[in-house]
């Protein structure tokens, strides 16, 4: 059995999707997260098991809204989408053919859909008769840490003059041509995963991967209405970041090497305490930003608090404190209760000075 399977225990690995793959780039310095993700461990369950459930959730209103907007854009043979593509990319009127790959004759197995996706895209790329313009729900595949994973996409692929684009439909609003920068960034990272996977598919079919454009068509509701609007989103930087992170996943081997052979996060056989210890023995790199992106964050924060780590105060604070790792060290150096090591001399001097001024000013 594979080491990673041992780690996870006898449950199926968690499926990857564009969101989880995009998340690889969120805190690439964290070995803990890298290992849990590579092994396909259910972090949500694990966090709850060790007593620090993740505070994540999605409002039913947001889910409904997203689904109804998606349906609206695709309704009536993608009427809205065709209009937007004609307006923004100059798609010619004759290009209107549409293929839905959410199932193949009622069969919605991944294998089946992926095969059909490949066939349809290949035919389209060859430009033969009956080649399509819009491909809804293409099922793509990606190699992540040595595993092949299917990407259940919420996208439409689309070709214009031989170039293929990814269309991403999101329900956050574009008000006066501006949208929430955090949400746009998340959309860009996810779209980059699809662009990347689509390019891999092209390469595997012997087609030029560059025929998949780095310009993604982002479709959002305009202003406060439901009317869809499209914006081109250049995801080259996100693609580069993704490629970097995917290539770095090989470092899992290095992390694994340092762990004992029977090491496991198996929730079936291990007590919460044991799982907590196992998770704790893999180095984390906690930052407050994790709280909004990683299911294990509350566990890691509690651990950082236990260690009195300066990580609790945020990345910039830690850098401002000259990289000192612990809060007691910061204060000890400041009040001279702790002798500085040779490499701490400078920061110690600054802290003593800051403490003197601070104490004076407070008095």
């Amino acid at each position, binding site marked *: 059995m594979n080491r990673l399977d041992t780690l996870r225990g006898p449950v199926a690995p968690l499926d990857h999707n564009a969101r989880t793959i995009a998340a690889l*780039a*969120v*805190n*690439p*310095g964290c070995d803990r997260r890298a290992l849990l993700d590579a092994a396909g461990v259910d972090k949500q369950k694990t966090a709850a098991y060790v007593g620090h459930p993740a505070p994540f959730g999605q409002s039913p209103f947001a889910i409904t809204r997203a689904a109804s907007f998606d349906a609206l854009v695709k309704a009536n043979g993608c009427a809205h989408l065709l209009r937007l593509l004609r307006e923004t990319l100059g798609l010619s009127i004759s290009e209107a053919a549409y293929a839905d790959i959410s199932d193949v004759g009622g069969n919605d197995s991944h294998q089946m859909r992926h095969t059909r996706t490949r066939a349809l895209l290949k035919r389209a790329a060859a430009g033969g008769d009956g080649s399509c313009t819009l491909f809804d729900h293409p099922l793509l595949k990606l190699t992540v840490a040595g595993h092949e994973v299917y990407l259940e996409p919420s996208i439409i692929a689309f070709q214009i003059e031989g170039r293929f684009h990814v269309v991403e439909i999101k329900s956050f609003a*574009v008000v006066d*041509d*501006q*949208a929430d*920068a*955090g949400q*746009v*960034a998340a959309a*860009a*990272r996810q779209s980059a995963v699809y662009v990347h996977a689509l390019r891999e598919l092209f390469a595997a079919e012997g087609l030029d991967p560059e025929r998949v454009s780095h310009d993604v068509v*982002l479709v959002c509701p305009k202003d406060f209405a439901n009317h869809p609007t499209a*914006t081109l*989103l*250049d995801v*080259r*930087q*996100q693609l*580069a*970041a993704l490629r*970097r992170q995917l290539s*770095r996943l090989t470092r899992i081997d290095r992390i694994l090497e340092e762990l004992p052979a029977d090491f496991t996060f198996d929730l079936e056989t291990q007590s919460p305490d044991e799982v907590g210890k196992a998770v704790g023995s893999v180095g984390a*790199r906690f*930052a407050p*930003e994790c709280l909004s*992106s990683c299911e294990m964050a509350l566990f890691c924060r509690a651990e950082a608090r236990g260690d009195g780590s300066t990580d609790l105060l945020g*990345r*910039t604070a*830690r*850098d401002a404190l*000259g*990289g*000192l790792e612990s809060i007691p060290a910061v204060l000890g150096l400041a009040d001279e209760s702790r002798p500085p090591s040779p*490499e701490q*001399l*400078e*920061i110690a001097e*600054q802290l003593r000075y800051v403490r003197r001024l601070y104490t004076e000013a407070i008095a």
Partner: protein
Amino acid sequence: MIAETPAQAAAAATEAILADFTGGAHRGVIVDSPPGAGKTTLVVTAATTLADSGERLMIVAQTNEQVDDLADKLASKAPALTIGRLHSDGFSVPARVTRHPGVTASNKIEHVEACTVVIATADKWAYVTGRTWTWAIVDEAYQMRSDKLLAIAALFDRALFVGDPGQLDPFSVVDTERWAGLAWDPMQSAVAVIARLNNLPVHRLPVSWRLPASAAPLVSEAFYPFASFRSGTAAADRELRLTTAGFPVPWDRTLNEAAASGWALHELPSRHTIRTDAEAVQACAGLATRLLQRGAVAHDENGSHDVSPDRIAIGCAHNDQVAAIRAAGIPAGVTVDTANRLQGREYDVTIVLHPLSGRRDATAFHLESGRLCVLTSRHRHACIVVARAGIAELLDNHPSTGRVQLNVPVKFPDGWEANHAVLAHLSRHRIEA
């Protein structure tokens, strides 16, 4: 086909630029000029060309130093030209400008407007009203914020915008996304705005006369991925010789490597430090001192000269680092400054305190590709980078979670990629201290 020589390529580019500028088909022409690509020469050529056909011209630069440099060069190359140096109240124009008989310096436009060429900073031009010029040259236009251009654009009919796209973007103390995505976002550079709102021809100067053959390919690839350029000189044209032999100590080995290859990475042991890392600061100051002690001589296409203190610069990211290096004892005359202030300047040897040295996390500020580009493209002979080990890991661990605004053109190169490219190159010239 016979390959074009650098000089031929540069001449062809200049000719095309002037044809577009004076041809009348466009109100503006943009010229992308990589480091040391003869931007000043182009400005001088354009000015004299216009002056020869009896036209009046205004020139805009961004700092007084740039204005004075230009005025000096213009007057030197075209002594017959009448040049008005317009300046602000209380500013004393340096002698290198006033020594030219053709130059009139004044803080009042009435005193200089009759000159064929009037030259001033954008800030000063903004106070000139009620006059117009047919022709304008805007120098360092990528450094100019678009709101500054807005204040002066009514003064001219047509303009040549010249600048280096790889350098630092203009800066604001205000952190707002209010105008993000608007074509006229005032926080963009002047060039970004005119290019988005007008369909203007964009030229580029294809040859760097400053950067040696050892540097041009790296700087071009890392910072100008879509506008490559080459060095105007061959490897054999430039040589940096240290007249005294060194000791087998890190500083001397670093200098030897830099003299031999044009690059050196002076690498200190990995450690997280405060910004004014004493060891790194000491290394920067010490390397400069030692370079002078060892009697560096620079040979180039114009002959040989001693590398004097004024031909050496130390560059860093922050003002407190500048102050710390100055306080660490540097030879008189050596320039120490931040990247922002080193833009557009040129030295024989530069010593760079790497913006990411000793940090645990990178911020957008430290990763900005323009900063590293400025720091690694000021030299004619060699560039020495002082850094703590561990930057590669820092880059690997850097989270890519930036914010993305709609309709804002993606900036290239990405700071991460550029940093990696430079670091990969430097690792071949590493001296462990």
